[in-house]
């Protein structure tokens, strides 16, 4: 039995090694920052929905580009390539089904006001429920399936952000409340992702190509 547990641990160790580069943290941190960044529109002119969408799209695309290039140029040359077995494939399918379900739930809630349904809740309570239900909970489920522990903390920070932004809105005004909430949250996550990345680079230096060639040639 103990051998079975050891093999499970070994598989987990391999799996978790793919998250130790900090790139997911940096990527998600940048996405969180994007929730606040779109409000910089008024600083450079008029604020419109189109402006906001363009800013968010450029920001998120840049974040994804950094993540993609980072995985290809920083992570893979250092920790190498791995393809996991059936267990991980099954988990991925379950996660995909859950995410599709969440998209459906989001769409329903998005169109709920059109049906005349109204929730007479305090805005603070409402945003707390929305943040925890539509942000923290799904991200926690993702963290569970991916066994990515740092994501739980990011999920809580991101979910509470909506509540905090509503809390500071009377003081700083709209839409600056989003900038002042999500930029620090995202910034903290980006910084800790950066620290994880630096540790990763130190722990896994680039192997010399002649060493790899030597092994390949036997």
């Amino acid at each position, binding site marked *: 039995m103990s*051998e079975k547990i*050891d*093999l*499970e641990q*070994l*598989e987990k*160790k*391999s799996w978790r*090694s793919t998250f130790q580069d900090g790139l997911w943290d940096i990527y998600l941190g940048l996405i969180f920052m994007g929730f606040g960044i779109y409000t910089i529109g008024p600083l450079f002119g008029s604020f419109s929905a189109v402006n906001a969408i363009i800013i968010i799209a450029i920001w998120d695309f840049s974040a994804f580009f950094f993540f993609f290039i980072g995985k290809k140029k920083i992570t893979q*040359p*250092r*920790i*190498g*390539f*791995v*393809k*996991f*077995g059936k267990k991980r494939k099954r988990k991925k399918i379950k996660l995909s089904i859950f995410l599709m379900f969440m998209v459906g739930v989001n769409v329903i809630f998005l169109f709920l006001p059109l049906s005349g349904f109204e929730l007479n809740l305090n805005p603070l309570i409402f945003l707390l429920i929305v943040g925890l239900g539509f942000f923290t909970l799904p991200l926690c489920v993702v963290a569970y399936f991916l066994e990515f522990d740092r994501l739980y903390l990011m999920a809580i920070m991101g979910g509470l952000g909506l509540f905090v932004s509503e809390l500071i809105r009377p003081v700083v005004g709209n839409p600056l409340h989003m900038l002042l909430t999500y930029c620090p949250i995202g910034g903290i996550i980006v910084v800790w992702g950066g620290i994880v990345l630096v540790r990763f680079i130190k722990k*896994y230096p680039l*192997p010399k190509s002649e*060493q*790899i060639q*030597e*092994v*390949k040639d*036997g």
Partner: protein
Amino acid sequence: MGKRPEKINPINPSLPPIDRLIHEPARLTILANLYVVKEVDFIFLKNQTEMTWGNLSSHLSKLEEAGYVSVKKELAGKKTKTRIRLTEDGREAFREYRQKMDDFLKGLPE
């Protein structure tokens, strides 16, 4: 496909015959790491096993000769990608080894 090594226990015939090729700690580490995944490359295996390049190379060659491990080279642009995986024989041999060791150790008094 290589020839499966002879499995006899020369010390005591009553002990279960153990595959000595697998029993060696470094090769056991390699096989255990390959058992839990589908496919890896050299760098990943080296990091997981924490072996030196030379050690890894020599043990992999032995496992490949025995037909327990397959090492495939694929061309990806200008680079060669090497993929290492456990063969069906290797998987079966590892399972058998685990079972025997488990049975043997369970049978020992506290």
